[in-house]
């Protein structure tokens, strides 16, 4: 019911919206909850487990009941708290967890079965048969219990992540937060003031307090106007500070567009902020506790603070005939506000025997509400007094069990709150978050005057830490009323008294957990699911804990709290992942030949973040093998071209470059002649192979190292570590130039012919022998040429600055094709290298040594190097180690499979008789058979023996002959010719 003359809504701006298909009207400034209450719609949802009818309980982000689905289609958002959703023209909301309708929900039958559905019910009941766990029980239970659902389609909403930095972050813009921000702002500090509501002011908007003789909200607006005028203050509304992390880092979520249907292109729905603050002030306020009594969950029963908020902020009376129940002086404030607004107050039930009386309304002292009735909304309550029970008709009960300071953020870094007996609540333990000062209600100081005072003090503390001088600021005049709480957690009696409204946990459930020896608060929580819903027990944890403490005969401080973890309130996964989906998660790196390769229909495969062509299909070729075989033959018979730019290229310069390379490679590089290339092997310090590649000496103090594509980043880090950490005195420096050079392999007997005429010099074996390198001009462009080969053929790699890559690639293709050759992709490259027994990371997979791959002699005995000492451990060179060999199939099956294991021919193929495994296989068109590289126990000593390959997964057994891993041209004549 809307009350004339009350509220901070704009009555000149009516806003139409739809709930469950019915059109309603509210005003600008309304939330979905306040607008529905104004329209007398008390029923807003169904409970999680028992499908009980529920109305709104609170007026803030802690709301457990009024969860709704907003919108439809890809942007549909479930579990939106009606208390946080501002209405806008076109808003469409739907109730959840009901079928077929909110009013008539078939699954409310669960409620009748409630005696059987208490804590531990699922664990005890759905035990047999085990095969039913995942297939029958879980799906059925999930359907019956639950919240809203996503659309199942890709969300088209945009989310954004952003950083902010400040001297002081003030969390919460109630009286304490406003005062802290004002104090720090006037001192010249860079301040961010964040508040989860769309309007700043906190409880000042929800109460009728006066500050300095002005209504609280007017005072708040004046302070905000001053803050807005300061360049050093930034106000962030609709922003929930959700987590406190190390070194002053905070997570915050700004709901940028939830309050409007307008979704301008490019604007985010939400922004995930990482705020780095030198200091912080927590002024997060407090949350009111409901009281547990029989059937305390009917629509119409809500917290007293929420009743006042709806009345004072939104001009809505939650009922026409209101009753009030509680244990603090707060409840009398509720009665006065309602009476002033012309709402009838049927009775005030104060559990305290010494409660103050009033001449304006009836106060029942020492009384308790012990039950309620009404089908889909409250109709009456039962009040228990020493003289007996009495029924009072009412459509709204405002209840309070006291207030819990919002200590959450102070516990995110492992802090534990402190119990304060005088207010029956936990307060933050000072120093829980370094640099954070606490002010106001979240510190257990509930009066407006105390909030203002502590706001000034907290800012002063922060300013001192920042080295700024606090301005002289007068404490505004405000109420300093007493709180006077007496314990009231649960009203004794039969029936179900609800604690956790969102997860349907009752007082009985908690007591039962204690009876069944789940006495630790963490055990009780998990057994009953208390506090495990999306509200994380904001309304119920302390009461549940108090009941557990009572049931186990301990005090509350000894019982302790469960752990508060971020986020403070739910955050969409989309906000967490902002910027990290799709290519943001995995960037794509393209070579300069990418477009040309795709234009030739090459399937592109991933190599790290790079994309490389798998093969280049020609018209008429129907399988990848046909293309691959042709490409291999072209290289062996004519010439092939392949983009090898993705290999890591590290430019190394300095007088000590050679010395440094001697230390990171197993073999010598200081002795390498200028204009020559050498193959190098790099070990990890534990003696295993890390990476391999060629390094060219371009000048006296200038080397260019090549790494494998996959290990480029790792090797760069390694070089920097070895230099900075182990030999900082060496004068050498590195730069990755992988992306600066486009590099192409030109391989095959006609490679020299292909290149002739492209360069400023003639290539012959004398000036350009195998493993030569140097500067060349490529059609007038300064480039580099390396006579190196990964195919075993006479080959070159030619490099030009990346901007010339695409056009050089086109020229190379044209020339290769004219010579009867062409492009080759990764498949052919792999075949060519297996035929030659060249290793890749399939072989140097982190568990093989130089000895294992047949390169033991490459570990120079003339010098120390990374990994050398550990590589000499006896176990790494002993007999029986699995070492690199080649395999050829003999016998009926001709199939080799990578990953398959090797056994002696007559042995049973079981783990204990394992002799090794295959790492790389291919069909060799050159040898017209499958071939493979493998690690076999004592392999090189067993050439000519027959072993049995067994692939247990695919069920293939093949007899193989052990051969030298260099299948083709073992003398290496072709590469030099």
């Amino acid at each position, binding site marked *: 019911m809307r009350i004339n003359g009350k509220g901070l809504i704009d009555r000149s701006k009516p806003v139409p919206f739809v709930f469950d298909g019915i059109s309603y009207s509210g005003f600008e400034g309304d939330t979905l909850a306040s607008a529905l209450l104004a329209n007398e719609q008390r029923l807003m949802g169904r409970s999680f487990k028992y499908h009980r009818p529920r109305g709104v309980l609170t007026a803030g982000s802690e709301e457990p009941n009024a969860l709704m689905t907003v919108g439809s289609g890809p942007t549909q958002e479930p579990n939106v708290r009606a208390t946080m959703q501002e209405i806008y023209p076109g808003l469409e909301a739907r109730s959840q967890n009901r079928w077929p309708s909110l009013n008539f929900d078939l699954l409310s039958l669960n409620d009748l079965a409630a005696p059987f559905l208490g804590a531990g019910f699922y664990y005890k009941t759905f035990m047999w048969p085990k095969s039913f766990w995942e297939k029958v029980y879980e799906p059925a239970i999930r359907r019956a219990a639950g919240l809203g659902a996503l659309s199942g389609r890709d969300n088209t909403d945009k989310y954004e992540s952003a950083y902010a930095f400040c001297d002081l972050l003030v969390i919460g813009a109630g009286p304490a937060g406003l005062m802290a921000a004002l104090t720090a702002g006037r001192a010249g500090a860079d301040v961010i003031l964040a508040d989860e509501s769309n309007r700043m002011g906190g409880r000042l908007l929800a109460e009728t307090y006066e500050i300095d003789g002005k209504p609280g909200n007017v005072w708040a607006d004046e302070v905000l106007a001053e803050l807005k005028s300061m360049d050093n203050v930034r106000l962030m509304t609709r922003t929930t500070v959700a987590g406190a992390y190390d*070194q002053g880092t905070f997570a915050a979520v700004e709901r940028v567009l939830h309050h409007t249907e307008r979704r301008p292109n490019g604007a985010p729905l939400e922004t995930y902020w990482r705020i780095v603050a030198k200091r912080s002030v927590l002024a997060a306020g407090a949350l009111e506790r409901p009281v547990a009594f029989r059937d305390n969950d009917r629509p119409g029963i809500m917290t007293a603070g929420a009743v006042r908020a709806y009345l004072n902020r939104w001009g809505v009376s939650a009922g026409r005939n209101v009753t009030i129940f509680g244990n603090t002086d707060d409840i009398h404030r509720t009665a006065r506000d309602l009476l002033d607004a012309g709402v009838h107050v049927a009775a005030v039930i104060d559990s305290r025997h010494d409660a103050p009386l009033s001449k304006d309304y009836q106060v029942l002292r020492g009384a308790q509400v012990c039950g309620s009735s009404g089908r889909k909304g409250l109709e009456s309550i039962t009040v228990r007094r020493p003289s007996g029970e009495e029924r009072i008709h009412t459509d709204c009960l405002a209840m309070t069990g006291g207030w819990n300071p919002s200590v959450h953020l102070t516990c995110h870094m492992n802090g534990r709150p402190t119990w304060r007996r005088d207010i029956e609540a936990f307060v933050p333990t000072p120093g829980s978050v370094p640099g954070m000062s606490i002010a106001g209600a979240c510190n257990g100081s509930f009066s407006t005057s105390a909030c203002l005072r502590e706001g000034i003090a907290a800012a002063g503390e922060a300013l001192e830490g920042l080295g700024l001088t606090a301005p002289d600021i007068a404490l505004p005049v405000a109420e300093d009323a007493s709180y006077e709480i007496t314990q009231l957690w649960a009203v004794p009696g039969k029936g179900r008294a609800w604690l956790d409204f969102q997860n349907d946990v009752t007082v009985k459930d908690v007591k039962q957990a204690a009876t069944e020896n789940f006495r630790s608060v963490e055990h009780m929580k998990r057994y009953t699911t208390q506090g495990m819903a999306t509200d994380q027990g904001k309304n119920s944890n302390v009461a549940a804990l108090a009941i557990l403490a009572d049931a186990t005969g301990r005090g509350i401080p000894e019982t302790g709290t469960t752990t508060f973890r971020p986020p403070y309130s739910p955050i969409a996964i989309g906000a967490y992942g902002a910027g990290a989906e799709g290519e943001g998660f995995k960037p794509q790196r393209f070579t300069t030949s990418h477009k040309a390769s795709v234009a030739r229909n090459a399937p592109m495969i991933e190599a790290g973040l790079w994309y490389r062509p798998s093969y280049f299909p020609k018209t008429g070729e129907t399988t990848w093998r046909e293309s691959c075989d042709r490409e291999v033959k072209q290289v062996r018979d004519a010439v092939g071209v392949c983009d090898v730019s993705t290999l890591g290229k590290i430019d190394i310069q300095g007088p000590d470059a050679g010395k440094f390379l001697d230390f990171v490679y197993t073999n010598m590089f200081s002795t390498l002649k200028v204009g020559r290339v050498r193959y190098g092997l790099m070990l990890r310090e*534990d003696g295993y192979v890390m990476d391999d590649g060629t390094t060219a000496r371009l000048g006296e103090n200038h080397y260019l190292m090549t790494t494998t594509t996959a290990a480029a980043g790792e090797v760069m880090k390694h070089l920097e570590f070895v230099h900075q950490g182990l030999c*900082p005195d060496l004068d050498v420096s590195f730069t990755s130039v992988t992306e600066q050079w486009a590099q192409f392999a030109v391989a095959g007997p006609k490679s020299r012919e292909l290149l002739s005429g492209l360069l400023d010099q003639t290539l012959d074996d004398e000036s350009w022998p195998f493993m030569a390198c140097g500067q060349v001009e490529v059609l007038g462009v300064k480039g580099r040429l390396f006579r190196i080969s990964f195919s075993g053929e006479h080959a070159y790699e030619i490099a030009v600055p990346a901007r010339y890559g695409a056009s050089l690639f086109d020229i190379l293709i044209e020339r290769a094709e004219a010579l009867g050759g062409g492009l080759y992709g990764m498949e052919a490259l792999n075949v060519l290298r297996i035929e030659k027994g060249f290793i890749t990371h399939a072989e140097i997979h982190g568990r093989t040594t130089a000895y294992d791959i047949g390169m033991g002699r490459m570990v120079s005995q003339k010098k120390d190097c990374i990994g050398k000492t550990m590589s000499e451990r006896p176990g790494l060179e002993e007999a029986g180690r699995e070492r690199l060999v080649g395999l050829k199939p003999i016998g009926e099956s001709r199939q080799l499979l990578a990953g398959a294991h090797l056994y002696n021919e007559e042995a049973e193929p079981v783990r204990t008789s394992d002799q090794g495994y295959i790492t790389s296989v291919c069909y060799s068109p050159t040898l017209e058979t499958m071939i493979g590289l493998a690690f076999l126990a004592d392999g090189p000593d067993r050439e000519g023996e027959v072993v049995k390959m067994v692939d247990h997964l695919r069920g293939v057994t093949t007899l193989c002959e052990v051969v030298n891993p260099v299948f083709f041209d073992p003398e290496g004549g072709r590469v030099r010719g």
Partner: protein
Amino acid sequence: MRITCPHCGERDRREFYYRGAAVDLERPAPDAGEEAWDNFVYLRDNPAGVTRDLWYHEGGCGAWIVVTRDTVTHEVLKTELASEAKS
């Protein structure tokens, strides 16, 4: 978490790559013996308290940094360049 790079200043920890204990800087001589090498390559303390470890400013200047921090409170006590921290 924030780490102060001696070159770049205070930065978010996501700019850094974590390696492990700063023991990695204390490479023994090749002939130091099995125990010294075993300690260096494999054995690490797991302190509840002050620890020194190596971070690489991969998203920044490329410096290897020794960070002295408290594993219990997460307090960062000191950062220095590995090239200067080498004992």
